[in-house]
């Protein structure tokens, strides 16, 4: 079964192969892979305690989907690391400049958008697959066209790294995008829960109706635990087709 040890490992291996195949470049253009690797090692020593070993945050904020990081230029990141963030809990670091630049390179790589990387797949074939036999468009929208149960993918190329897109395809339950927990309404209507507390829930069903549930109405909702994203993409589609999809998705950027 999916989720079992062997299943997970199979996907991990698959992810590894695909990563190699697509030549995933999670590095910012201006930094050599060696610099980014050096930065990564240093990050694990000095930064991971607060920002998490994968940069996804802990005591400190996530540097992965941080808009602040993407907006900041290299000099600003350099300064933040060297001088810390005054008034916040980001301490200064008195490393040699070169090491700080390596860190900047690694921090950049954490949020390098897919659109900036080269994916050697056939984007046109990926597009045809997405809107056709792949069945993706039934749940996902791009520029106003498509279904509702999955996230809008119009800007996925500028908001995610390539390996994040790959992971979403091959191991969809590894993380579920906020606002897309799967649920069933009234026992038979497929829906996603945009938000919920113990007192209210905001639920969008597959026919495009928004349900603003209150109090006892929450009983109409059953959480599915997993997401509606199909779990068989990895087995259903050959590697080159997955690559085509990633090539297509990585080009979906706002401007």
């Amino acid at each position, binding site marked *: 079964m999916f989720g079992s040890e062997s299943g997970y490992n199979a996907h991990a291996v698959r992810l590894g192969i695909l990563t190699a195949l697509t030549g995933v470049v999670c590095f910012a253009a201006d930094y050599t892979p060696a610099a980014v690797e050096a930065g990564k090692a240093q990050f694990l020593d000095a930064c991971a305690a607060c920002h998490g070993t994968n940069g996804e945050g802990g005591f400190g904020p996530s540097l992965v989907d941080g808009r602040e990081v993407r907006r900041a230029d290299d000099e600003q990141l350099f300064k933040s690391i060297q001088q810390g963030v005054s008034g916040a809990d980001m301490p200064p670091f008195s490393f040699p400049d070169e090491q700080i630049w390596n860190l900047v390179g690694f921090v950049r790589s954490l949020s390098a958008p897919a659109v900036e990387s080269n994916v050697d797949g056939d984007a046109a074939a990926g597009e045809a697959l997405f809107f056709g036999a792949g069945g993706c468009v039934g749940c996902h929208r791009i520029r106003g066209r498509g279904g509702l149960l999955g996230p809008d993918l*119009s*800007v996925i190329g500028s908001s995610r790294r390539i390996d994040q897109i790959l992971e979403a395809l091959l191991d969809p339950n590894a993380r579920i995008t906020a606002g897309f927990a799967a649920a069933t309404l009234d026992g038979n209507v497929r829906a996603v829960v945009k938000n*919920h507390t113990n007192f209210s829930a905001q639920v969008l069903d597959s026919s495009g109706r928004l349900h603003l549930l209150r109090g006892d109405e929450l009983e109409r909702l059953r959480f599915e635990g997993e997401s509606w994203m199909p779990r068989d993409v990895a087995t259903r589609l050959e590697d080159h087709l997955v690559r085509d999809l990633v090539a297509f998705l990585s080009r979906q950027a706002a401007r």
Partner: protein
Amino acid sequence: MRLLLCALVLSAAAIGQIDEAAILEGAGDDWLTYSGDYASLRHSSLDQINRENVGSLVTKWVYHVPGARRLETTPLVYDGVMYLTNTNELHALDAGTGRRIWTYVAEAPRRAQNRGAALWGDAVFFLAADCHLVKLDRLTGALIWTREFASYEEGYYTSLAPLIVKGQVLVGTAGGGTGQRGFVAALSTDTGEELWRFWTVPAEGEPGSETWGGFPSKWGGAPTWTTGSYDPELNLIYWPTGNPWPDFYGGRRRGDNLYSNSVLALDADTGEMKWYFQFTPHDTHDWDANEQLVLVDREYNGEMRKLMLHADRNGFYYLLDRETGEYLQATRFVERLDWATGIDESGRPIEVPGLEPTPAGVKVCPSVRGATNWMSPSINPEIGLLYVVTLEMCDIYTGSAKEPVPSSGFRGGGSQQIPSEPGQFYLRALDSLSGEIRWEYKMTGPATMWAGTVSTAGGLVFTGDDDGALVALDARTGEALWHFSMGNTLYASPMTFTADGKQYVTIATANDVFTFGLFSD
């Protein structure tokens, strides 16, 4: 089963019908456009909250907007969902609980304040600061398209809530402070394609260009940074314009500088100008005329007239005939006003000489922030009072006679406050016909706020105050009936709506959105 299906189909069809008729119904359960309706009345027909029970208003929910520094948004509400903006962001909330449904973030290279969104069909529109119109699916926040209508690299940016008229999204620009020539443009709600554009500064050789003394129209300013009004019967869009550039030095732009500091009446289908009226000719005090334009039909001198009401930053309250643009009257609504002794019969200010900014500095009233500004006024049509947030203040204005360099940040001078004469905010209730001040509510605070008002059929007017409180006043007498201190500076105007059958009142502080409702257990 078949019945159920039909019901579903029907309700699906009922979804997404935000059209002109819906907006024309005016503010009630929903609040569909920036000023509540096309006439910019900011008056709601809701009366569940009224003079008798407003004392038991309590906070129902607070929504924090992460990273916000200065929310200026007037939220919209349709069918229980609230839409509010921060710079380059649109948030959709469950209006009854304040819980987020979705957020859309535009990756824009520029930031600026943002005053709100616009609804049409099954879409919601807003403007990213770098002059991109963004169209989103109203339910999911999914991107449909973005369309650039001006270049931020040329110094343009934008901050207003767009107005949607006849399937056209009307947009305007800011950036007049660095000279960028203003315009109103109509973009198709379907495709984003630009349908027409009206430049607020005539090109060389066009009528009006003779009022610039040879100054290049490209740098005339006259930006269009607030939301206009619309009269479907006359098929006219009314849009106010800002000051000419350079703001404080007029020596290189001799003349009236049309169409700065004016209201433009534009054909709603073509953008062709039908008439204009200029409030402050040849402005050198940064007195943009971007304050709201309130449209009412009232008897005036024994005749029913289609009127336009406008309390201007220059300190005068104007009545115009909005069919023809005819000037009817103007009265001052602040005491601290010394730049003109009045307005003559043609509508032109009778200016006091010697009050142009000088290198040494000259004291002029009102201050650069104006007697009022873009903070929204509101009118109670039954009572006939117009509620205007008013600032009594003077400034020292300095002008410098340098050669203007566009896009350099040059503004030809500036202004400074007079520490011994701090500003004083009031909410003033003007008789909408005579301009007489019927009552006033004196605020406390440091004179730093930019909050406006909303009027309701419950006999109330809500105003943000200068000390971070929302205050409910008796619309007839100005008596303060209720207040709540939110502990933060206000830059936005309140609005009201219904969710789950209950009336709520909402206002944004600098970084939170507060919603109030009647206490119930």
